[in-house]
């Protein structure tokens, strides 16, 4: 009987191992009510009292072993089936995805927003003003009287003798100072106009962002610190700034501000024309005449102002070689941003 049991075990395990085995049929064949193992167990009565528990134990062990094998084979079969199914469902992942419409901000907006975010984070609010502006705010309130030679450097579009297209966003500063008492900490972005014909580096319409801070005890060191922080945030932590003395009628002292070249880090390259520095900003301490004209006492308050061209920064940042691209709005250009 022991041999019979061992034989059944060997046969069953071998049959179950065949890849094409029908596991359910084999279960019934060996373990079912009419199965081979059950048949053997039914003959147990003929055994001696000593043999019965031994054979019984053996039969149970064999049943457990066959059951375990069945379970393992079922699991393996199931896993294989899933694998085959998934294999059959395989997709070509290199086929392009469904087309999802993707819009793009204009590069000028990207730069302007970045500038705004930086200064919002530094406690500035954003102020706006008219583009068709009074001569008074564009020039006179900024210490540029009629016939001032500084007017020559900004060829201005006029509507009437006293109304013009603003040639800078500075009139917004004058308007802000008239309305608001210090502390003033504002950024004025927007369109400005100068009568320059369109070419690779000029446009009769362009964008400026100007900042103004007026309060008690504002120093030129504060101006430097502010622009340094701005430059590091905008162009990278390693960026340095350099002030060069300059003249603007509405600030005194005035400076042109360079940042260390963000491509070569100051060693000199094509972008910075070998200089290591790139001119980015004009800045200075608000002229006391400007403060006075806007009703702020320069003996009590001081302030600084700075301004930059959005186009210039966008062109440097994205290496755009021709300003005209910005206003032609070819979608093949816009799609790159």
């Amino acid at each position, binding site marked *: 009987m022991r041999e019979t049991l061992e034989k059944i075990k060997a046969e069953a395990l071998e049959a179950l191992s065949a890849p094409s085995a029908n596991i359910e049929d084999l279960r019934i064949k060996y373990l079912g009510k009419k199965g081979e193992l059950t048949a053997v167990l039914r003959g147990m009565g003929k055994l001696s009292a000593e043999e019965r528990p031994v054979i019984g134990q053996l039969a149970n062990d064999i049943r457990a072993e066959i059951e375990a094998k069945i379970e393992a084979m079922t699991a393996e079969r199931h896993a294989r089936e899933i694998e085959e199914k998934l294999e059959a469902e395989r997709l070509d992942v290199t086929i392009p995805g469904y087309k999802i*419409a993707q*819009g793009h*901000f*204009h590069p*000028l*907006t990207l730069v302007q927003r970045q500038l*705004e975010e930086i200064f919002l984070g530094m*406690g*500035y*609010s954003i102020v706006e003003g*008219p*583009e*068709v*502006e009074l001569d008074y705010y564009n020039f006179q309130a900024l210490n540029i009287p*009629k*016939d001032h*030679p*500084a007017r*020559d450097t900004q060829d201005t*579009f*006029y*509507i*009437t003798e006293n*109304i013009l297209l603003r040639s800078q966003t500075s009139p917004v500063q004058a308007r802000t100072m008239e309305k608001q008492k210090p*502390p003033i900490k504002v950024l004025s972005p927007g369109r400005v*106009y100068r*009568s320059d*014909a369109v070419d690779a580096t000029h446009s*009769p*319409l362009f964008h400026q962002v100007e900042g103004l*801070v007026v*309060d*008690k*005890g*504002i*120093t*030129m060191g*504060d101006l*430097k*610190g*502010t622009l*340094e922080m701005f430059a590091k945030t905008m162009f990278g932590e390693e960026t340095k700034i*350099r*002030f*060069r*003395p*300059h*003249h603007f*009628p509405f600030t*005194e*002292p005035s400076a042109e501000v360079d940042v260390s070249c963000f491509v070569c880090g100051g060693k000199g390259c094509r972008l910075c024309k070998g200089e290591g520095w790139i001119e980015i900003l004009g800045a200075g*301490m608000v002229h*006391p005449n400007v403060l006075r004209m806007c009703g702020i006492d320069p003996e009590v308050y*001081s302030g600084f102002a700075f301004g930059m061209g959005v186009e210039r920064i966008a062109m440097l940042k994205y290496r755009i070689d021709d300003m005209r691209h910005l*206003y*032609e*709005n070819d*979608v093949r250009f*816009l*799609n790159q941003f």
Partner: protein
Amino acid sequence: MQLSMKWLADYTDVSDITIKEYCDRMTMSGSKVEGFEEIGTDISGVVCGKILEISRHPNAERLVVCKVDVGIDAPIQVITAATNVFEGAVVPVARDGAHLPGDVKIKKGKLRGEVSEGMFCSIAELGLSLNDMPGAIEDGILILNHVGLDDIPLGADMVEALGLRDTVVEFEITSNRPDCLSVLGLARESAVTFGKELNLSTPKHDYASADGDDISNYLNVKITDTEHCYRYSSRVVKNVKIAPSPLWLRMKLRSSGVRPINNIVDITNYVMLEYGQPMHAFDYRCLDGASINVRKAEDGEKFVSLDSIPHDLDSTMLVIADSKKAVALAGVMGGENSEITDSTTTVVFESATFHPGNVRVTAKKLGMRTESSARFEKGLDCENTMPALDRACELIELLGAGEVVGGTIDVYPTKKEKATLPLNADVINNFLGVNLTLEYMAETLRKLDFEVSEDMTSVTVPFFRDDVRCMNDLAEEIIRMYGYNEIQSTLSNSASPTVGARTERQSFDVRLHDMLVGMGFNEIETFSFISPSYYDKIRLAADDSRRKCVVISNPLGEDTSVMRTTALPSMLKILADNYSVKNRDMLLFENAKVYLPTTANELPEEPARLTLGFISADDKVGFYRMKGYVEAILAIAGISDASFKSCKTEPTFHPGRCAEIYAGDVCLGVFGEAHPETADNYGIGCKVYIAELAVDAIYAARRAEIRYTAIPKHPAIERDFSFVCDETVEAGSVAAVIKAANKLVANVELFDIYRGPQLGEGKKSMSYAVMLRGEDKTLTDTEADEAAAAILSALETELGVKLR
């Protein structure tokens, strides 16, 4: 301003500083350097030689063989084709290995079998013009005997001997510093910047003729317009011998970019460059009435300037006149009628100051900006007229160009006073954010020619620094010499805290733009000015109010001559430009201003307009796609009760495919398919969909505050209705009737429109899904049936629509 470093050396010695460092440090102390040029470095190996013997070339008729003494043991042989050479001529000889301008190299060689060890040079070959070397000829060898230079030692380097080598630094001088438009001004800045001595000399100023002759015997000067002429100083020079200036003077002018003319004219230019005071010289013979009157021109007065160009003057322009006629345009240019010529024997020197604005406007009106007007329009120092005049007379004597007549006429109605400012170290330190001593400040100002009081509490500003008028100006003088970049960076520690935030409106725009880009729109930027003809392109009627716009009085061109009152032409143009380069897949938006005129002399209104645009080959869905975008924008603004009205009156649009959007009575904008003629006018060969929305109105109509409403607790019952109606029945009115028919109606949605032959001509079938919901309970079928009946009856009575 072009500065000759050789000229600078007359006043301060910066020879131990490299040119690169000189330029960098001058820029950092406030005199911006644009660049520098080393002139004369392209010439080498050219020496002075004397032609000892000329013989015919054995093999060439047009060539001659010259034996030339170039200061070495044996003469060299030079073959030349030049015809103006002669035995005894002293000439520049480019020897073997010499370099000439234009990268020309001279090598020893054979010309038709005869050895030539060099080449004789013409003026052009030395980079000179006839003005630089008067007496020379253009098409021949420079014969030094003919230009008074035959005393140059043989063998001497010609670059050295002629003084051709110089370094020229180009400065960009800001408008507040006309004093730096001069060698002296820049010498002062250089001396302070590099801590060097400034070596000034005061020219002789008392001229008395030995024969007792006096200027009063010659001239009478009157300033009629004292408002525009502040000072007029004058001297007379007699027995003038017009001749070329000496070489050293010509070479300085040349380095400064000024053409030498003759000794008298050159002296006026020399003084202008050196002292920054423009001068003029009149031929005394040409002054009618022996008088000078500074007056306004007559309207229509004729005047021919030195450059032979006739001008019509007007009564705003200041002229220098004699008793009969204008002889100079004050501060701009002299007149042809009193020009210095070779036969001039008596000269009147003018050294004057004029109203800067008047000079600027006159020069601009006549389109003749000169070296002189460029200086005057920045405002020159009245106290500089006499030193300049003295310097000119000194040069007359130095050059032996004439005899200065004794006496000066100096009309100076209001003598200038020097300004005095308080000096307070604490105020300046606190303003700059530095910590400098009062002594340092005083010392720096003194070096810049400011007078500082003994107790260092006040500063007297030199006459030539009219730009210094307040504490800020003194602070700048100090900090530019101390170094802008030495200021320690700080971050407004003393300032009051402020909140940095966008306004609600600014945030609304940001959100709107983010959403549009998220929906696939590309943002565009277009010019605010357009051509008035663009209004024709978008088919506006001749009397359309939008044609009334803000007009630029000095536009660049017709294309950019008026401020737009609608942004649609800009959008259409960009769509068209893209279409023309075969870009098809585009969805564009712009949020920018339009400019609506108000009353004359008032600023226009500048409302924002959001334009949307795309083109589509598919006729069916374009309008509703655009409407979908518009609805999405309204949804972002939280406007749930907007209505859409068919609009036949917007000429830019297809009359049957255009809608206006309303929130109550307020129009929020218009959108639809562009009129086929509009598309045609822009050369777009397919359907164009555009929208122009009034962002300000949308913002005003927005839902400002969000309030949560409870999610319904009870399930809804959905009923579908399909019915046939006339084509003219609008879906919007059907939905409105359904909605109003019963209070249980929670939502109405159109899900199908069908047209077919079985419905008949002019009919359509519409299918709506209507959601019914009780507010506080689950509806029974009976209640739903009752609601459905109410809907049907309302549709029938109000619209005559019947269930299909």
